[in-house]
């Protein structure tokens, strides 16, 4: 579903953010991406979302080589990927429902389909009764779940989460991880970027570890983490 071949990213200021990355994620696979801050986690997520372009290498997402697609094709690429942000990125001038409906509105779904899908997504994250509230009135954990509902409402083939449990207590983190697991069960590729070592130890998912932009670990081994 996601395949990187010899991908490097060098910023204009000369900093090598990623060096010669090679890995492949299968459909339905759930993977942790870890590393210290500055190791290249964020850069990798930005490359997958095409917020940044790779300096070298090939990137296949959903069967398409995205390294050199034109700027005008980027929005359509992003519609195939659901992204959960650390800071939620919700809009506080509209309801929970409208926040979750945003990707469908942009993609041009009919109002009937939109209603059905939004409610299904909100039901999945357990917030069906809060659809008419403003997200500002919700707790941190609830806001995170609104963000997840928005990320999955379009039934993306790839779900990316950037520090999804960053500000949450272990119990809420477990709930969120459980949700991700359910998406993986139905075939969504889930990539979770986190530096929460405790979280990584609690689950036995495949682990990608970055260090100074290089992939130093790819597998199920948790030793010396």
């Amino acid at each position, binding site marked *: 579903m996601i395949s990187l071949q010899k991908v490097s990213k060098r910023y204009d200021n000369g900093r090598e953010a990623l060096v010669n990355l090679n890995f492949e994620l299968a*459909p*339905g696979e759930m993977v942790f991406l870890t590393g210290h801050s500055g190791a290249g986690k964020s850069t990798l997520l930005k490359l997958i979302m095409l*917020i940044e372009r790779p300096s070298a290498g090939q990137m296949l997402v959903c069967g398409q080589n995205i390294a050199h697609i034109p700027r005008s094709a980027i*929005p*359509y690429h992003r519609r195939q990927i659901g992204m959960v942000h650390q800071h939620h990125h919700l*809009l506080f001038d509209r309801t929970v429902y409208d926040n979750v409906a945003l*990707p469908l509105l942009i993609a041009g779904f009919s109002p009937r389909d939109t209603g059905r899908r939004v409610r299904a997504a909100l039901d999945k994250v357990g917030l069906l009764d809060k659809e008419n509230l403003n997200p500002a009135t919700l707790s941190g954990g609830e806001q995170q779940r609104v963000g997840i509902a928005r990320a999955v409402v379009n039934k993306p083939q790839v779900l990316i989460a950037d520090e999804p449990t960053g500000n949450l207590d272990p119990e809420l983190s477990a709930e969120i991880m459980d949700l991700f697991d359910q998406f993986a069960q139905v075939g969504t590729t889930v990539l979770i970027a986190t530096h929460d070592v405790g979280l990584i130890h609690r689950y036995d998912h495949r682990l990608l570890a970055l260090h100074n932009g290089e992939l130093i670990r790819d597998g199920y081994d948790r030793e010396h983490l």
Partner: protein
Amino acid sequence: MNQPAPNVSKGATVARVTWRQRFDRWREHHRDVAVDSLRRLRATPLPTLMTLLVIAIALALPAGLFVLIKNVQTLSEGWDGNAQVSLYLTAKTSDAQGRALATQLAERVDVKRTAYISRERALEEFKEQSGLGDILQELGENPLPAVIVVYPAHDTLEQAQKLRDDLARKTEVDEAQLDAQWVQRLYALLALGERLVLALSIGLGLAVLLVIVNTIRLGIENRRDEIVIVKLVGATDAYVRRPFLYTGLWYGLGGSLIALLLIQALLLWLDGPVQAVADLYRSTFALAGLGLGTGLLTIVGSVLVGLLGAALAVRQHLRAIEPG
């Protein structure tokens, strides 16, 4: 290294949307965005009203001046065709000589016809029209010269002017006067006025454009977070641009409508005094408004300037706002 993922199912189904549905949604989206951008303008009534007034005044100035010039033009219309040259004959010229000259001049190709007014007729006419007959009686002697009125064959003022210069050289003629001279001067002034309106329109149109660019720029800045988010979930540039283009459209439309109201108010305000003046001159002149065509042109032009301003602002600032 890469082990197969557990539980690989057939994969999530990608949502499919037909072209028909896509078009329907696109149309609905345009309607929603149009309504929403209008709602946003209404949510901040005071700044919106101030912007609209700036646009309206900038449009009303040249448009109002244009209306006034058009009115003066109608007032003077039809007079240039009736230009006539009055030849005041010298006192030495006899009545017979005068009549002979009038007949002779009527033969010229650049003259349509002539009319001879003898000294006696001139006196009679003057008595009738001025009501000063008694005083003239006192004078004993007729002070008025004989006049030949020459009607030029051609309509233009230039040709009438040439004719006047030509006839002024005749020995019998004391003075030749082109009666249309003031119309000529008025026309020159009106032409100047029209140029002025054009210059004013361009200058103030540019001002309107800059006002809209700046207003939309602020709007973009205020919605920076929203722009980043919609871009992250797959909004195209057109999608992001749309609300701002509609905002520009509303500013242009609203501004021009207020401008038309201002002009109408000005005309109403002037109508009373103008009627009073027209009555004094026994004229049937009435103030004309901007007219449907020019009114529509003002609206369309203003809407286009609004859209252009928004497009410029969006072009300049939207690309700079990217997630990351």
